[in-house]
């Protein structure tokens, strides 16, 4: 079922799909390193609202700076990159993904796997659910002088609805701004049939991903939908949505989880299979990447399994029914962008988390509030209260950061998690 790999912290238990995922991502970084010598063009873009199927239809390779940053965080490289950016005048108050990326660039743009990241041929600024994205690519534009930028402004779902003029606005921007620049950079004409074909592959992968995420409704859950979930979303949120490799990965992953479910097995953690599921949690907010394994361990050591999370929806909210639709390709891309988690209003986010608590039979929910990300973090304390009121389930609140190791206080976080789980235990005892 699983095999061992070794990292700096000792032997790590991994599912087959995790190894496959690692191969895919590693292969993509290799392809990026060879891109210039092979004459391939690369497009930098963001995870929320990414237009991978469209880029791929022009044979362009995507580079996702958030993925570079989080990978750098997991490989303990981000601290130096952030320091470098701060030395260059970037404020200590702002997003550490941005500073990690700028710092990596200033130190030679060597990617997290040790291979060079090529300079962009286009900056595709998909402005979806995060204000910082705009400033981030404006900063990169200054670094890569002369690099064209395609701006795609995705309206915010402030009142919880997708209005038809939002969709029209995005489609018009795709037609008049994004596609012409992709054509210019790639030297290829827009091929809608190719896009449709990619979108079909996306929909298949999305079906399988949703099945996997919803497998956590079973008790016990065969997956951890947050710490394990970030591996599951890697290919589809990154460069592989709309590719055969991506679709194959999700088919493999689904088969693996089906088997785990049939055998009533719990999630695989870095220390092996979780034998006893003691607490079922929903988590809001991104994980900390610099101490990811240590952070995860704080949960699985206590038998806590995350059964649903909002972070695994930042690159698309597929479990509420959305699928990329080849019959209306540009409109479908527009709907995809509009529906990403951080593009939802706070009330819609609370509604979603409330549904998760109920649908996944959660004992509690936690918010990991990250300093870097105001899009996620501003308002989370009110979300906590609202969720407690609506569900009657107690909430926990911890603070860390995405990739700045200075903001991960292990002792404090562990203490809070343990106290929170003790409270759940007491509540359970009182109810019995």
């Amino acid at each position, binding site marked *: 079922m699983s095999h061992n790999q070794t990292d700096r912290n000792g032997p790590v238990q991994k599912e087959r799909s995790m190894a496959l995922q690692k191969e895919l991502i590693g292969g993509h970084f290799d392809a990026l390193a060879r891109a210039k010598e092979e004459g391939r063009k690369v497009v930098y873009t963001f995870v929320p609202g990414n237009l991978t199927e469209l880029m791929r239809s022009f044979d362009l390779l995507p580079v996702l700076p958030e993925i570079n940053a989080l990978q750098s965080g997991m490989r303990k490289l981000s601290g130096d990159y952030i320091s470098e950016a701060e030395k260059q*005048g970037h404020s200590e108050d702002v997003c550490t993904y941005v500073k990690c990326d700028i710092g990596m660039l200033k130190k030679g743009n060597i990617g997290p796997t040790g291979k060079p990241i090529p300079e962009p041929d286009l900056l595709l600024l998909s402005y979806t659910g995060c204000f910082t994205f705009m400033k981030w690519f*404006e900063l990169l534009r200054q670094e890569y002088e002369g690099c064209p930028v395609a701006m795609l402004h995705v*309206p*915010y779902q402030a009142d919880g609805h997708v209005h038809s003029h939002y969709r029209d606005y995005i489609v018009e921007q795709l037609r008049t701004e994004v596609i012409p620049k992709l054509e210019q950079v790639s030297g290829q004409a827009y091929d809608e049939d190719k896009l449709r074909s990619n979108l079909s592959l996306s929909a298949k992968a999305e079906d399988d991903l949703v099945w996997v995420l919803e497998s956590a409704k079973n008790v016990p859950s065969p997956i951890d939908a947050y710490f394990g979930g970030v591996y599951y979303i890697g290919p589809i949120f990154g460069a592989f949505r709309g590719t055969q490799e991506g679709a194959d990965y999700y088919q493999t992953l689904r088969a693996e989880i089906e088997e785990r479910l049939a055998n009533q097995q719990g999630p695989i953690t870095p220390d092996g299979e979780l034998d006893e599921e003691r607490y079922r949690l929903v988590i809001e907010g991104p994980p900390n990447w610099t101490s990811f394994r240590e952070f995860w361990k704080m949960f699985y050591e206590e038998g806590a399994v995350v059964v649903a999370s909002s972070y695994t929806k930042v690159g698309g909210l597929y479990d509420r029914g959305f699928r990329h639709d080849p019959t209306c390709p540009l409109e479908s891309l527009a709907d995809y962008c509009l529906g990403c988690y951080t593009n939802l209003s706070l009330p819609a986010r609370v509604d979603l988390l409330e549904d998760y608590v109920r649908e996944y039979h959660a004992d509690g929910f936690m918010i990991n509030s990250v*300093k870097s990300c*105001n*899009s996620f973090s*501003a*308002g989370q304390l009110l979300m906590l209260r609202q969720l407690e009121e609506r569900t009657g389930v107690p909430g926990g609140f911890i603070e860390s950061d995405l990739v700045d190791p200075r903001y991960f206080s292990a002792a404090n976080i562990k203490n809070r998690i343990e106290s929170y789980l003790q409270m759940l235990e007491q509540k359970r005892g009182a109810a019995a």
Partner: protein
Amino acid sequence: MNPDLAHLVERVSNLYEDIAFQTVRDWKAAGTGRHAIGYMPIYVPRELIHAAGMLPVGILGAGDRLEIIRGDAYFQSYICHIPRSTIELALTQRLEALDGMLFPSICDVIRNLSGMWQMLFPERYVRYVDLPQNFDPAVGGTFWRQELDTLRTDLGRIAGREIADRDLRHSITVYNENRRALRQLYEARSERPWLFPTSEVYLVLRAGTVLPVEEHTEIVRRYLELAPLENDRLEQDMSRVVLVGMFCEQPPLGLLITLERAGCWIVDDDLLLGLRWMGGDVPERGDPLENLVIAYLEQSAQTASVYQPEGRRGTWLVESVQHNVAEGVIFCAPSFCDPALLEQPMLVAALDQAGIPHTQFKYSENTGQFAVIREQAGTFSDSIRLWSEA
């Protein structure tokens, strides 16, 4: 001080101090069926509110004039201060006079604050004003027109009457008059900053966030007449600086006074930028909504929350320095302000390229100690003068 000027300054100071928005309450009580609509920084089309017969009210936090008791419980320590005091104002019933709130797309904090408002005050009208970042009239313009159409309908519903084109044209006219007066004020200050100290200009400007626009225009015009009559306002050997980063969370008044006492004449700034958002007049003839749309696309201020397709970030700042014959720039941004702080390295690069000196520090709207800022600004001012003399 001339009694007329003293009276005017006292009036605008009182308005600044009035965090219970008594002026707005009084305005509403003076007529039947009157409504007031609050708005956060930076830009909202106030003409639409005015055309509905309502009072637009700028909500800019509470500065250093309110102890935050409940607001801090809603925000983590790493989030800026303006949402805390704004929530505090609302939870302490100080914003009861408002019949609705508009939250423009400045940053993720203000965006999420709009959602908090929906949850905390479900009975109130709340709208997120999603300003277009595409400036093609056929694309971003079409989107913005539809957004404004919705806002127009919503405001009309609150007012109990549709907003007629003629009313909107009239509103555009009175706001054009206000914008002209403010441009005149900024030009006058730039020419002779010793006659129009920023600590006073700011209060005059700020009155425009709570008074009816017609009344505010009169105050600005009167101030322009009265301030130059002061005999004791003499030119001094101080540095001319442009102040940048204060477009959202407002600095405490003491900070502006401190900068002037430290030897800095402020000759341009981005304080209360929404009042001066349009670089020129909005056309008064033709389709008024379309005129607002085109004015937004073509005349918007260049600031951190607005995308620049040409990618020339900082050009406007260099041009401002040149136009106002400034000798340096002070970056003065609120702590944890994403737009200002993410923008800053790009502006610094533009200034460095142009050889323009600059310094930087951060503040919070409730900052109470200015000794360090005074020392830093004073040193900056001294160094500029020394370089100039060399």
